[in-house]
C-alpha cells in the first residue's frame, strides 16, 4: 500500500517518460542540425544559428501564454470550473516565462552580433520585455496567498488581460518602425529562407513544443501535489483541534 501511495505522489507516467526520451532525442537532433548541418547565412554568417532557439522560444512562449488564457477562461466558466484548469494555467505561464526568457537572452546575443547592440528600446524588444515582466507579475499574483479558489479567480482575470499583449508584440514590427525584422515565416506568405534553414526552424518548433508538453504535464502535477500538501496541512491542524476538543 505504501508503494501504491508513493506511486500516486510522483509526476511521471510511462507516457511522460516516453515523451521525455523523444524530447531529448529531438534536442540532440536540433543541436546537430542547428550547429553543424545547416549553412551559414550570406549576411549574418554563423550567428544565424541563434535563430533555431530564438524563434521557437518566442513562438512557444506565445503558445504557453495562450494556453494560460484558455485554461483561465475554462476555470472562470461555471460549467467547467475546476482547479485543474487553474493549475494548467499556472504551469503553462511558468514555462512561457522560461521560453520568453530564452528568447530574450538569445535575441540579445543575436542583436549584439548583428545589430551591434545587446539592447535597444525598439518596439518589438520593448513590448516583449513588457510581456515578460507581465507574466512574472502574474506568477507573483498567483503566490499572494488565500485559498486555492481565490488564487485561481484573481490569476484567471489577470491572465485574460495579459494575453491581449501578444497581438501587440507580434504586430509591433508592422505598427512601428522597428529595428527588428518582420516575420520570416508566421503570417508571411512569401517565405524567403533557405530550405534546410526552414526545416531546422520547424524542427526547433516541434522540439520546443514537445519540451513544453513534457514540462506542462510534470509541472501541473507538481502543482496538484503542492495544493494537496496545503490541504493536508489544514487537515492536520483541524485534526489537532478536534483531538483537543474531544470531537471524534
Amino acid at each position, binding site marked *: 500500500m505504501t508503494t501504491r501511495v508513493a506511486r500516486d505522489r510522483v509526476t511521471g507516467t510511462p507516457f511522460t517518460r516516453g515523451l521525455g526520451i523523444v524530447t531529448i532525442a529531438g534536442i540532440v537532433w536540433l543541436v546537430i542540425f542547428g550547429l553543424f548541418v545547416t549553412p551559414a547565412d550570406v549576411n549574418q554568417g554563423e550567428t544565424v544559428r541563434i535563430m533555431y532557439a530564438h524563434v521557437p522560444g518566442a513562438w512557444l512562449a506565445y503558445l504557453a501564454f495562450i494556453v494560460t488564457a484558455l485554461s483561465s477562461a475554462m476555470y472562470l466558466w461555471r460549467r467547467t470550473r475546476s482547479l485543474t484548469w487553474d493549475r494548467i494555467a499556472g504551469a503553462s505561464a511558468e514555462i512561457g516565462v522560461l521560453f520568453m526568457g530564452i528568447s530574450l537572452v538569445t535575441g540579445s546575443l543575436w542583436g549584439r552580433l548583428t545589430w551591434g547592440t545587446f539592447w535597444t528600446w525598439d518596439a518589438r524588444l520593448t513590448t516583449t520585455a513588457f510581456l515578460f515582466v507581465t507574466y512574472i507579475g502574474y506568477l507573483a499574483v498567483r503566490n499572494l496567498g488565500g485559498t486555492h479558489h481565490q488564487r485561481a479567480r484573481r490569476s484567471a482575470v489577470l491572465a485574460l488581460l495579459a494575453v491581449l499583449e501578444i497581438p501587440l508584440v507580434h504586430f509591433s514590427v508592422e505598427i512601428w518602425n522597428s529595428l527588428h525584422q518582420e516575420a520570416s515565416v508566421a503570417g508571411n506568405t512569401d517565405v524567403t529562407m533557405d530550405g534546410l534553414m526552414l526545416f531546422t526552424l520547424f524542427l526547433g518548433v516541434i522540439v520546443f513544443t514537445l519540451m513544453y508538453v513534457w514540462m506542462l504535464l510534470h509541472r501541473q502535477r507538481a502543482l496538484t501535489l503542492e495544493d494537496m500538501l496545503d490541504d493536508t496541512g489544514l487537515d492536520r491542524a483541524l485534526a489537532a483541534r478536534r483531538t483537543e476538543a474531544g*470531537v471524534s
Partner: protein
Amino acid sequence: MVVNDDSLGAPSGDAGLDLSPRDVAPSRSRRGQRKWVPIVVLGVVIASAGVIVTQFLTSAIDYYCNVDEIGAKDGCETGRRLRVQGTVDRGSVVDDGTVTAFSITFNDVSLNVRYEGDPGGIFKECIPVVVHGTLQGETFSGDRIEVKHSNEYKADNPDRVENELDSPEGTGCSAPA
C-alpha cells in the same frame, strides 16, 4: 467560524470546534519566508514595467525617419536629434581607424554619415542601418549605429553570383555620385 472554501470539505460535525487563530512561536519555515517573496517580486515587476514604458517613450522622442523624409516629414526636421534609416552605399565606406564615413540611401535620396568608431555588428556595404544622431550641415553625425537585417535568409554559398536583384529595392545600393 465557517470554513467556506469548497476545496477543504470541512465536515459539518465540526460545529463548535474552536477554529480561532492562535499565537504560535515565530517560525522561520521556508513557506513562512516565502510569503514576502511574491510581494517583493510584484513590486519589482511594477517598477520594471514603469522603466520599460518610460525608456520606450523617451527613446521615441528621437524620430525614426527614412533618409528621404529628413526635412520633408513632420518630426524629421533637420535641427533635431533623429534616427535615420537607409542602406549603406556600395563603395562609400571609409574607415581611417577613428572615424567611419559612409553614405546611406533610401528612395534614391542619399545622406553622408560620419561616425566615430567601429559600427560593429554585421555592418558592411549594401546593408540597411539605423543611425542615431544629428544633421550637421550636409553630414549626419552619428553616435550610435544599429545594423538592420532583413527577414531573408540565404545560405552562404561561395558559388553565389551576386546581382543587383539582391540589393534592397528603392536603395539601388549604388555608388555615390
